[in-house]
């Protein structure tokens, strides 16, 4: 009975092949499929790096990246100010990339955790490389100068975003109560009031020309600082250069 069964299978299969009902797909079909799959993988990987590096750039540009240093309130404000849309996109791209690479032996033979860690490592390295090339700074500048309309919505929504509790700017004047900063995107000026309650996790040796992140609620053009920290990065060159002579600020006793 078994032999009869399988002879029947063989006959039916060969009959279908001979009649042309079952036809062999040409090799180019599979080559094209592989090329498309690889292209899709590369495109998703590039999109993922773009979104991840834009997230990092936006966090730096708005100053949000630096506020967890101001304690629990800083961490709370950090979580609330994260660009969640970009993060959701990044997660979606990670899932899609995972699905795309899962067909390859190197990916499915290892636990999912390893390939996810591999993707994260790839994203981190990619984002570092992007930040070295100043890719986002270039696009951001072209948006500010009105040269790039295509990238405008992205950078307007994320990197030029106005935040209530966090301001990143350059010190242009030191006074008795604190200092004055100028900040993008419109070169607005704010007087920052520093008190004994202000958290200064990296000291209070501020000078004109320093880039600082100020954490505190803004009231018109005044900010009562909950925390201030110097950021070791210069603001883009569009800002006022400030007075030539550098002044130092010391917290009043």
């Amino acid at each position, binding site marked *: 009975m*078994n032999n009869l*069964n*399988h002879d*029947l*299978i*063989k006959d*039916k*299969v*060969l009959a*279908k*092949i*001979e009649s042309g009902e*079952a*036809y*062999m*797909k*040409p*090799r180019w*079909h*599979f080559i094209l*499929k592989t090329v498309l799959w690889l292209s899709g993988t590369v495109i998703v990987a590039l999109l993922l790096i773009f979104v991840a590096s834009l997230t990092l750039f936006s966090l730096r540009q708005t100053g949000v990246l630096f506020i967890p240093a101001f304690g629990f309130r800083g961490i709370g404000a950090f979580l609330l100010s994260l660009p969640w849309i970009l993060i959701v996109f990044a997660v979606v791209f990670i899932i899609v990339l995972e699905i795309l690479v*899962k*067909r390859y*032996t190197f990916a*499915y*033979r*290892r*636990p*999912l*955790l*390893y390939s996810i860690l591999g993707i994260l490592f790839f994203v981190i390295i990619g984002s570092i490389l992007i930040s070295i090339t100043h890719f986002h700074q270039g696009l951001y500048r072209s948006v500010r100068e009105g040269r790039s309309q295509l990238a405008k919505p992205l950078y307007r929504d994320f990197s030029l975003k106005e935040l209530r509790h966090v301001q990143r700017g350059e010190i242009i004047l030191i006074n008795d109560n604190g200092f004055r900063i100028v900040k993008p995107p419109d070169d607005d000026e704010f007087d920052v009031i520093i008190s004994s309650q202000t958290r200064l996790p990296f000291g209070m040796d501020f000078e004109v020309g320093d880039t600082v992140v100020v954490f505190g609620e803004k009231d018109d053009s005044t900010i009562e600082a909950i925390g201030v920290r110097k950021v070791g990065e210069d603001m883009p060159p569009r800002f006022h250069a400030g007075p030539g002579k550098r002044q130092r600020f010391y917290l009043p006793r």
Partner: protein
Amino acid sequence: MVEKTDEEIAQAVQNGNSESFGLLVERYEQKLLRYAKKFLFGYTDAEDLVQEVFIKSYINIQSFNTNRRFSPWLYRIAHNEFINAIKKKGKEPVPFWDPDTLFPHPVAAEITDREVIEKDLKKILDSCLDKLEQKYREPLVLFYFEEMDYQTIGDVLKIPVATVGVRLHRARLVLRKIYNQIYE
């Protein structure tokens, strides 16, 4: 005369010798029928499914890399066909994702005394296999009936080798429990 390997026959088919495909069907139809019948309990159309597996493998044979082994490639097509049949019938759930594939597990040593325990276990398998979940049933069938190693099972199911070990270990435990419940 030295018998041609599966890969050599597959290459001949790729080069246009369609009749050679009959040799591959001859070599694998019994094995695939056994795989289908053990894995797909309560499905009456095992022959039709196996026939479909061969048709699909012929259609896609140009995608087969002749530097690799033919058998896992064919079984992978069979696995997909059988899983689709299970989904279509809707008799049992087929999870989209298995959490066992997420974390690394220590790879359990492959059982080397397969022959010694085979008789005993196959008897249990024959009577209880249908009571196991699909994700446990399939690696058992591939390991004990198709006599594949962990690596090959992993390639057929596209899961990590460590997950194959975990599934086989859990499957044996569940199997013994079911067997004890029924016969003791």
